[in-house]
């Protein structure tokens, strides 16, 4: 173990930036992300370490009860109830993983192993710990704890409880401080555990403000018992193999170039495989030949009729695919959840064919489903991430698992992904974002982002006095639905179109935007028009806050919106619903020199973004690659 420790992982940990001794202590991304990360359990629920995971601790349950309750109620996705209701039924099972105390314990044994690349673990590995401890004074710890936990956990109790909690935490961390001089391994281990206990205590206290401080004291011995050394060696040996494969994957991680639709031979090949017969659009836009441009609305009846003929396609997948095609499901989170739930159905109904291994066959199956989804509508980057997660989970199934065990484990993984990466992440984002809303603010939002809507509703619930400006654009006019929901809830709204954004920007104090994906050069890839709004806000010196779950972060880089994009139905452009007088283009759509371009996404340069609010905290766009690099691994670890 010790010999292996000296491998490449150590410098990696250091690169993260935790080691600089006089780093500004108030970097929200780091401080906030640290406990949150540790709360996402890298190992505790993985099949190997399941035996290790300690008993559930009651207070945490009511925490996550609360969380989930908050999460599910205001979800504004058009189909949220359909897709998120199942989550609620699952959440009790998942709760355990949200208790940071237990998850930390679970992950503690393999900490020293070379594979501790996940930053949450890395912080505590011996090599880096010295620097970490030296610079972190107790106050900083306290602030980071209370800051993060307050946001994650204190929900109904308002800022009043926040300050009460702070003091005991300081006391706790100070008591652990003198320990740092000692160097033996056992003591350092003990120190780490004490730290964690302190954190747990902090969390417990913040969760239930009234609870006495005696609680963490009770917990500490129990936790120590729960970490038996032999288990860690098992974990390590298991991880060794995992890591090698991970190295391979890392190489593979550089995203394969996307299908370029101006490459004729490849398009022909793809067509032969395709389930969806799509006829190419008549007037393709020259600039976008590399993107698929098909006639819209022609495939649906055809596919519907094929519903019973398609043998290999699972009905759940087929249904979701058709919903994508028809546009019934839109919005990054909704699409992702729908896809995952379809895959869950697939896995439940799956049985390994004879003489095939589950791992390979299921992966191949999922791949074919994914290509079907892609035919229905190009995948969003967040969906790509999700699929990568699922495939890595399948690949990492231990060979010892029976089929039913493997299926159960995968289903649980999917549930946990939905719950952690989407539902709970949204909650954390809401908590963070609400701190940025003051009384008297005028908040501008563009289109309809479900996270932003939850933020606005939550801030309204807290009694903050603010006004909302909803900027909308053709052809989808999603803002109208948002406007209706917000006005129905009693928020004061101003509605306008994107052209008027520079008129309305004078009175705006903050801009909240959703995002489809955040790329590792800080570019925000989002619904078309977001870049315009961000640009105008930048010109008027109004801060732009992007709200985006971390699972949507992607390591791809983009400089403009041309290279990678999606084209919507061009006919949506020529018709203006409700305006019969606008019919100039009715008879022109089949003219050769007339093209209609309905772009779906654009890339906002990072210079327009003041802050990205994500589940790891509030970060500047320059920190996106750090998150991608360090937490991107997590998909493979969960």
């Amino acid at each position, binding site marked *: 173990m010790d010999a292996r420790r000296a491998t490449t992982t150590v410098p990696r940990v250091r690169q993260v930036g935790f080691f600089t001794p006089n780093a500004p202590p108030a970097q929200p991304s780091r401080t906030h992300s640290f406990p949150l990360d540790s709360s996402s359990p890298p190992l505790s629920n993985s099949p190997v370490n399941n035996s290790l995971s300690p008993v559930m601790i009651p207070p945490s349950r009511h925490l996550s009860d609360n969380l989930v309750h908050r999460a599910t109620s205001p979800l504004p996705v058009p189909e949220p109830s359909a897709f998120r209701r199942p989550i609620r039924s699952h959440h009790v099972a998942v709760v355990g993983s949200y208790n940071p105390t237990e998850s930390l314990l679970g992950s503690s044994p393999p900490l020293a192993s070379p594979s501790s690349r996940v930053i949450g673990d890395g912080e505590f590995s011996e090599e880096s710990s010295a620097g970490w401890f030296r610079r972190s004074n107790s106050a900083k710890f306290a602030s980071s704890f209370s800051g993060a936990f307050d946001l994650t956990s204190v929900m109904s109790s308002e800022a009043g409880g926040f300050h009460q909690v702070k003091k005991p935490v300081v006391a706790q961390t100070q008591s652990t401080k003198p320990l740092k001089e000692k160097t033996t391994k056992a003591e350092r281990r003990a120190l780490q555990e004490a730290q964690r206990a302190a954190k747990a205590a902090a969390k417990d206290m913040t969760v239930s403000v009234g609870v006495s401080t005696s609680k963490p004291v009770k917990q500490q011995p129990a936790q120590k018992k729960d970490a038996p050394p032999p288990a860690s060696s098992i974990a390590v040996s298991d991880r060794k193999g995992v890591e090698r494969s991970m190295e391979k994957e890392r190489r593979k991680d550089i995203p394969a170039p996307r299908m370029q639709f101006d490459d004729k031979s490849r398009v022909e090949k793809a067509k032969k495989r395709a389930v969806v017969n799509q006829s190419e659009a008549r007037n393709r836009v020259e600039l976008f030949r590399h993107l698929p441009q098909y006639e819209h609305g022609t495939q649906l009846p055809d596919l519907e009729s094929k519903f019973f003929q398609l043998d290999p396609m699972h009905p759940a997948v087929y249904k979701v695919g058709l919903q994508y095609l028809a546009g019934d499901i839109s919005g990054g989170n909704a699409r992702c959840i729908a896809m995952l739930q379809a895959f869950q159905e697939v896995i439940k109904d799956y049985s390994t064919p004879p003489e095939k291994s589950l791992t390979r066959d299921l992966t191949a199956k999922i791949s074919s489903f994914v290509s079907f989804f892609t035919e229905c509508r190009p995948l969003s980057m967040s969906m790509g991430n999700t699929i990568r997660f699922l495939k890595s989970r399948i690949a990492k199934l231990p060979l010892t698992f029976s089929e039913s065990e493997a299926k159960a484990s995968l289903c649980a993984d999917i549930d946990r992904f939905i719950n952690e990466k989407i539902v709970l992440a949204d909650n954390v984002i809401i908590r963070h974002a609400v701190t940025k809303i003051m009384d008297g603010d005028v908040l501008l939002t563009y289109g309809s982002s479900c996270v932003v809507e939850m933020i606005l509703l939550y801030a309204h619930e807290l009694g903050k006095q603010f006004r909302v400006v909803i900027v909308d654009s053709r052809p989808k006019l999603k803002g109208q639905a948002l406007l209706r929901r917000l006005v129905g809830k009693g928020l004061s709204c*101003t509605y306008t179109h994107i*052209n*008027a954004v*520079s008129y309305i920007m004078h009175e705006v104090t903050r801009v909240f935007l959703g995002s489809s994906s955040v790329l590792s050069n800080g570019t925000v890839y989002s619904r078309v028009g977001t870049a315009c709004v961000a640009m105008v806000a930048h010109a008027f010196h109004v801060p732009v806050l992007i709200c985006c779950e971390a699972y949507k972060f992607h390591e791809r880089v983009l400089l*403009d*919106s041309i290279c990678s994009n999606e084209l919507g139905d061009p006919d949506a452009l020529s018709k203006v619903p409700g305006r019969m007088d*606008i019919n100039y*283009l009715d008879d022109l759509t089949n003219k050769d020199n007339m093209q209609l*371009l*309905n772009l779906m996404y654009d890339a906002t340069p990072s210079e327009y973004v003041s802050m990205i609010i994500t589940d790891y905290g509030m970060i500047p766009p320059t920190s996106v690659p750090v998150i991608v690099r360090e937490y991107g691994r997590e998909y493979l670890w969960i």
Partner: protein
Amino acid sequence: MLEQKPLLSSLSLAFACFFDLRASKIEGSQATARQTAELLRSVISQQRVPYTNQAGALIDAVRAVGEQLIAANPVELAVGNIVRRVLHIIREEDLSLTTAAIAGFNLSAASDGDDDDDGEQDEHTVLSAAAVAASARNALRPPSLQTLLEDMPESVAIPHTSSSGGDSEGKSKSADKSSRTRRLKHDVIEAVNELIQDINTCHEQIAEQAVEHIHQNEVILTLGSSKTVLEFLYAAKEKKRSFRVFVAEGAPRYQGHLLAKELVTRGLHTTLITDSAVFAIISRVNMVIVGAHAVMANGGVIVPVGLNMVALAAQKHAVPFVVLAGSHKLCPLYPHNPEVLLNELRSPSELLDFGEFSDCLDFGSGIGSPLLHVVNPAFDYVPPKLVSLFITDTGGHNPSYMYRLIADYYSADDLVVRRRVALGN
């Protein structure tokens, strides 16, 4: 009180125009400018001119009508521009007549010889006539390098002759009253006709310059609809340039659809995009060409809503932002808070169906104010730093030069048309 009656009839004409303006029946600054000029022409032709101070009478009449027209739609700056231009024309015609008359009088005085004045005084008046003209021109135009050079020799003479200048003017007026009465009015009407002609043909003159600006295989972005832009692009196409045009539709009026239709029927490669895709597409655009609603004296432009966004995006990508503007759109005013003061808020029905949101509109916040506001401005203001070039019928100009160009068209006395009313009050 002789002129009372014709003034009334011309006012009734003005009121017809006034209502059209208020109801925004007249669309586009060109049509407005033409109508205003035609109206003012008829005002001038109906105005009965007194024997003395004819120019003053004409100016008063035009001003009276102009005030009302401007008040009818203060946002439509073209009205004010034309009123000022007509006033300027009257002043200039008056001046040139005066100069000519003085010169003629001096000539006749010298040849007759039976006048009381001796030779010395004759010489003096010749000098004084030129000085009057020069000083009047100076009053009309702000000093430029050219006028400074012209005036150099005479500037010394002005103080000497200021008293005799008025004297000689009075004499000249008494000399050929009857011919001058007709001539001033006639000349002014002629000049206004020329102005109308200019307004009508400014497209052509701007379009002539198209080939100098549009090159082969360029990609051009425009937003909304402008006849000037249409003619400009078409002129470049006529000269065998092949290029691509992206048209942003310009919600909520969707004038871009109209422009796209026109361009397509004229055979240009046209792609219609949504307004929100402007930023996405601008990285591949070579030039943004737009029409203006009005050009302000500081070089800023009032443009259809949405173009400020386009201008910002163009600046970010270093794409030239070119504004086409006929000279009738040049406004001699410096804007203050133009986004609000020179804007027009249109009906919310263009954005939301009244029926659809009628239930939401009922939700009051308790203090009587409705929860839902719909903002639908018609114009944007693009500050001069975002404009790369103006192309007017007199050629291309920098935004920083607009103040000078404007000084050629307007006299400083007319910048505030409402002044008389302010004094009266």
